[in-house]
């Protein structure tokens, strides 16, 4: 129910509407619930409304943390980390 997906904002339209691109699918959504989003942002879309925005720096930081974890692992998995 709370499912929501990050989608790339590609076009702003009047009346708080915008178009997002999700893996090639374009859809008009409402951006009335978020402040100051722009083309190029990844917004989190839930039931046709953007409810939040992805912070790209924080996303990088979390991924870096996972990678760090991989370095720390006592028994490295047989497959090399990407």
């Amino acid at each position, binding site marked *: *129910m*709370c*499912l*929501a*997906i*990050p989608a*790339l904002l590609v076009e702003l339209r009047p009346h708080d509407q915008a178009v997002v691109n*999700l*893996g090639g699918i374009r859809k008009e959504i*409402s951006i*009335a*619930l*978020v*402040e100051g989003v722009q083309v190029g942002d*990844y917004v*989190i879309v*839930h*039931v*046709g*409304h953007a*409810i*939040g*925005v*992805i*912070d*790209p720096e*924080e*996303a990088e*930081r*979390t*991924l870096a*943390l*996972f*990678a760090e*974890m*991989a370095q*720390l*692992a*006592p*028994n*490295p*998995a047989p*497959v*090399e*980390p*990407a």
Partner: protein
Amino acid sequence: MKYIDEFRDGDLARQIGARIAAEAHPDRRYSFMEFCGGHTHAISRYGVLELLPPNVRMIHGPGCPVCVLPIGRIDLAIRLALERGAIVCTYGDTMRVPASDSLSLIKAKARGGDIRMVYSAADAMAIARANPQREVVFFAIGFETTTPPTALAIRNAAREGLSNFSVLCCHVLTPSAITHILESPEVRQLGTVPIDGFIGPAHVSIVIGSAPYDHFAEEYRKPVVIAGFEPLDVMQAILMLVRQVNEGRAHVENEFTRAVTPEGNLKAQALVSEVFELRPSFEWRGLGEVPYSALKIREAFAAFDAERRFDLSYTPVADNKACECGAILRGVKKPTDCKIFGTVCTPENPVGSCMVSSEGACAAHYTYGRFRDIPIVAAAPATEEATP
């Protein structure tokens, strides 16, 4: 897809799993509740349990809006369609939830009720505009994630003067449900449900922020780690919880910093409080009446409140006796403890609400996990040509 695929890397997940196994003390057990159905779904779908050591256990929580919706509420929506001639619009998840008289919204539709599945509250408004002679009711369910779009629809309907549109509001609140679980006798006195910490909601927290959970950490000494709905997020959150338990800490930590801030989405919060106020009490399936755990529409928007408009009164209805959804929603039982799991009750023919939505504990286990319960027996070498 960006921000999805990189959080589903299997090798990294195994490495985080190895880390959890290395840091979890072998002489103690760790029990964590994932509150959200979204996490329950991710744990089942991606086989997260396979990556955890045996002494780290996950307990499913009640964070599935379809699962906690009591029969009496669905009955109200069905009656609006069948007896009052209203067009009832609702999210797809609610269509198959069993209600009274062997009905569900989808069966009521088959009986001639004008019940329509919509993707958003805005679509329900469009149906109201297109049918000015008909009453159109949006049957609104969901946690804090789903509430702001409903608030927006009500405010816009008021501005637009969309007088044939109203909302049957069943929006519920996460923090009060967590408090209720922590106050339950199973957790406090009996100890039948040991909870060492919580994986906190992902998308609910985008809206409400991380601050509302501080209370649980301080008052109940339970660590909370807010996590995204991807498998690596869940694994990382479990590791962070194991570390807090090992260090004797009980703090609110945020793994989902790419989307969750301490204060949350203030614009959405302002709109929600403009349109809604707290209900003194609301019945949850499994949890019973929970004080101040749901929202109702404020007096200023009374014209758009289906409960006032149609003078509805709520009547509680008992669940099917064989169904264990109630105990499963409280974390007391597992889906496999239910006698009718996978036999009478399946996703095609759900008896209880936990089998309806893909994020319900029973549906998630039925779809992704039930074969784990069957012991693997090596097949006898039948023929020489048997292929592996």
